[in-house]
């Protein structure tokens, strides 16, 4: 394994930081994302969590369609509403000056006459209208947009966010899931597919991102978008190729060209799909996979540690490490 600092080339170290080794952390946050949907994020996230040999937490941030819980038997489920603050105008104080409407970037509050009218579904909860109102006539009221559930399953702590059907704003619910993250315990985050706001919100707080793909033109096309996303976010990342055998080696060739680590390859095995279809976790149906997920987790944590070292050493950069494919 090449030494991380030489692999990155010469970069001035911040004064005093040098090559000080990072104390091993116990609570790495590993996000599982993808460009293309349906590649196996939930399979990887659930099995990474279940194969853990110590306490672990699993955060289901795919709030538009959370389904990780289908593989888990959960107890002590505690559920809380997620709300965002929207404006309510005190008509007795309002003079219809229109400043609230002027400052709103989302057309969520407009002064078409007194009092201003509010379009709750457009409101992003920024609080600008409240602050600008010269008569202090606007107050915040909560509007429910989803829920967060917290539950247990032995050494696994599970947090799930769900966006209410018909709602458009996933990021506040995803932030609510992250707010339930218990410090000191490693976390696996099941992110939504794609590269848009919800996915970014789900992965941005993590230490490393596993990008799950399939060896097809669709898998590669969307993986390239996902790699661009994690590079823009400065997050260490690696690739997991699922359903090996249904396509060709284009993913591996891309990763080699781009210096992205291939962390694992999972065979296209009908028995995996059968267990999945029955809601049986892979490491339960085929216990020999537990060792493979354990090894995958170790590789991800190694990437996370290297990423932290680079950040501390002042190298910064795109967080992507060149690694030999083993």
């Amino acid at each position, binding site marked *: 394994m090449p030494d991380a600092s030489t692999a990155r080339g010469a970069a001035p170290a911040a004064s005093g930081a040098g090559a000080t080794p990072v104390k091993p952390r116990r609570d790495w946050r590993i996000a599982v994302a993808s460009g293309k949907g349906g590649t196996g994020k939930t399979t990887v996230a659930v099995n990474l969590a279940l194969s853990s040999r110590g306490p672990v937490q699993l955060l289901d941030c795919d709030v538009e369609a959370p389904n990780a819980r289908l593989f888990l038997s959960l107890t002590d489920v505690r559920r809380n509403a997620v709300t965002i603050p929207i404006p309510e105008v005190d008509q007795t104080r309002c003079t219809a000056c229109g400043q609230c*409407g002027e400052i709103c970037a989302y*057309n*969520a509050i*407009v002064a*078409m006459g007194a009092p201003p009218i509010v*379009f709750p*579904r*457009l409101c992003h909860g920024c609080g600008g209208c409240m602050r600008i109102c010269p008569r202090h006539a606007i107050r915040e009221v909560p509007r429910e947009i989803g829920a967060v559930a917290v539950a247990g399953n032995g050494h696994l702590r599970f947090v799930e966010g769900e966006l209410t059907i018909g709602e*458009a704003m996933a990021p506040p619910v995803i932030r609510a899931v992250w707010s339930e993250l218990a410090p000191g315990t490693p976390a696996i985050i099941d992110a939504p597919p794609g590269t848009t706001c919800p996915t970014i919100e789900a992965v941005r707080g993590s230490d490393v991102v596993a990008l799950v793909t399939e060896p097809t033109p669709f898998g590669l096309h969307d993986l390239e978008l996902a790699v661009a996303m994690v590079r823009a976010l400065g997050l260490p990342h690696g690739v997991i190729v699922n359903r090996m055998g249904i396509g060709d080696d284009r993913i591996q060739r891309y990763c080699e060209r781009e210096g992205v680590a291939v962390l694992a390859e999972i065979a296209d095995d009908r028995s995996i799909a059968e267990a999945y279809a029955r809601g049986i976790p892979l490491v339960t149906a085929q216990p020999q996979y537990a060792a493979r997920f354990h090894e995958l987790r170790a590789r991800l944590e190694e990437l996370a540690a290297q990423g932290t070292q680079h950040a501390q050493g002042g190298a910064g950069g795109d967080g992507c490490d060149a690694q030999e494919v083993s």
Partner: protein
Amino acid sequence: MKVAITSRGLDPQDPVDPRFGRATVFVVFDTETGEHTPLENSGGMDAAHGAGIQAARRVQEAGVSAVVTGHCGPNAFRALSAAGIDVIVGAQGTVAETFARYQAGDLQPVAAPDVEGHGL
């Protein structure tokens, strides 16, 4: 009074734009003189969300009392109603033909939006 007719272009011979929120242009007629002025719908055309609301503000700022268009969605309708602006839907043909029908009293305001919104 002033009435705004959604239009595909700046000229009254241009066809009516069937949309309100993302209409290209509003041609604003003075019902007493028959004179008309184009009003660009810059906010509505470009807005990611709330185009109908921005368009409603635009026409309100121009002192319009009635809007004539093809269709009007729920957000635009609510904003226009709050401002006391009449909404007439189902317009077809050219802007000039539509104005003639309006002046003849053939067009009646509606009490509700006639189409779903586009998202939020």
